[in-house]
């Protein structure tokens, strides 16, 4: 909407692209907002709308062509890749190189390793992949998964959930909720899945695109990812500026939290790879094979399904 106002003559020459977020704006989306704000999209001949979708709605919107790109996660998009409900989508860029998610708990209650979850209240989304991953790490740590008290996750505010002891342990992305704990000066214990089992170092979040769009208009896809990658590179270099731009786009966010999160993420956008967004087939397949082996995907997901590095800037 706002874009249509900036000069009609230009707008006509620009290619319209729509990006759906995973839900509400946060620091994972910084690169998009920087590219938008600094005109990288326009330079690439694009006019981009950034849209907030219904919860869990991005993948289908991208599949149906209502949006060209969207935000997704390697774990939750698994059911969209195979079987009756397969959607024509492909992951085209990893936003963050490593999986920074893990389980956080109040400090000193013994949940610094997975075994400590025994007898504790864990807020679950009741997702089979989620539960299998926890089972894997708990058992690897010599614990008994069945002893964890599972309660339904209704958590909107992780800090207060822990503070009020309504929950003992929560699955979070450290770059947002973890940083928020620090900001609120709540001492916590945290373990990260990727550290416990390398298979769990999958890509989360990722950018996805519709297959038809990729086939028919690869140039636009490349142009878009080129501009976005510049955005994320900027974010990596200058967290303060990134925080400011994000807060401008999403004023409801807490500025302190955004800045802290931005600083935490700065070296993680492009950690250890030359090109932002690159997805290592070994890690991608590794996680899906683990799903296959544990019977979490029906049918099994074939090698090299659902991602492509072809549209990243070279």
């Amino acid at each position: 909407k706002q874009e249509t106002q900036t000069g009609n003559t230009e707008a006509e020459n620009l290619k319209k692209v729509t990006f759906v977020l995973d839900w509400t704006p946060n620091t994972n989306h910084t690169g998009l907002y920087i590219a938008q704000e600094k005109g990288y999209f326009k330079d690439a001949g694009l006019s981009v709308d950034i849209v907030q979708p219904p919860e869990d709605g991005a993948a289908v919107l991208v599949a149906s062509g209502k949006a060209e790109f969207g935000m997704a996660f390697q774990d939750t998009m698994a059911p969209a890749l195979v079987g009756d409900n397969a959607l024509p989508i492909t992951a085209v860029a990893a936003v963050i190189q490593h999986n920074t998610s893990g389980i956080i708990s109040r400090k000193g209650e013994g949940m610094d390793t997975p075994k400590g979850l025994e007898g504790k209240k864990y807020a679950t989304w009741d997702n089979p992949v989620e539960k299998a991953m926890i089972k894997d790490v708990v058992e690897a740590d010599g614990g008994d998964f069945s002893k964890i008290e599972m309660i339904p996750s209704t958590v909107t505010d992780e800090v207060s959930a822990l503070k009020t002891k309504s929950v003992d342990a929560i699955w979070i992305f450290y770059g947002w909720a973890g940083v928020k704990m620090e900001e609120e000066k709540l001492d916590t214990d945290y373990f990260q899945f990727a550290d416990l089992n390398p298979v769990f170092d999958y890509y989360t979040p990722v950018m996805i695109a519709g297959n038809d769009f990729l086939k028919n208009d690869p140039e636009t896809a490349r142009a878009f990812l080129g501009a976005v990658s510049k955005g994320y590179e900027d974010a990596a270099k200058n967290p303060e500026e990134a925080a400011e731009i994000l807060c401008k786009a999403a004023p409801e966010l807490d500025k302190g939290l955004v800045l802290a999160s931005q600083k935490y993420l700065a070296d993680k956008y492009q950690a250890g790879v030359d090109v932002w967004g690159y997805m290592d087939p070994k890690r991608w397949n590794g996680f899906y094979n683990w799903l296959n082996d544990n019977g979490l995907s029906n049918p099994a997901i074939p090698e090299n399904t659902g991602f492509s590095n072809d549209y990243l800037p070279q």
Partner: protein
Amino acid sequence: MIRKSQSITNKLWSCSAVLGLLLLWQGICSAGIIEAYLLPSPASVGRALITEFPALMEHGKITLKEAFAGLFLGVVLGFFIAVIMDHFHGLYRAIYPVIILTQTIPTVALAPLLVLWFGYEMTPKIILIVLTTFFPVAIGLLSGFQSVDPDEVTLLRSMGAGNVSIFRYIKLPGAMGQFFSSLRISASYAVVGAVISEWLGGFGGLGVYMTRVKKAFAFDKMFAVIILISVISLLLMKGVDYLSKKCMPWEEI
């Protein structure tokens, strides 16, 4: 006799309308105009309904339990509010705007707060259902109580009747019609309310099932749940109609 055969033709008409829509829908899907992940065909939805039947029943039971509990409490609350507002005029003036206010608050928006306050067990769900169901009942009953013919009250007073007798012999039966038409609305709110409240989280119920199949991109199952919810609502409404006929035989003549 004439009435009966007429109601049968009515049913034929509406069935054929529904059937027509279904055929159109199947046609669109079969012709491949719309892809399956945009709109599952009625056939695949039917299949999902059958294969998922045990799971749906399981979850449906939980939802129905919540809906009934909420509806029951909502009706009780609505009844008391109506009686109190009818009886104490001062309270009426004080409570009425507050009640209207509660109804302009989007309950769905309240949902996350309710979980925060009351935990994730039944309580917040039932509160949400009560909040949506008590209102039609209270308003319906109240207007029923107040639309009573004042001459009927005079008649009973002339026979030396007190407030309790007036309530029992005039206000209560006089408000029955309004009560049942409100109950009909409340009953259908109760089911939808239960489903929404389950989005708040929990381990069972059609709302939970719905979020799960959504995450699994299983739109046929999603439609199956939606249809099941519709059917439950319709059955509940029919149930209320039946009850109202039983309770108000004088309407039948």
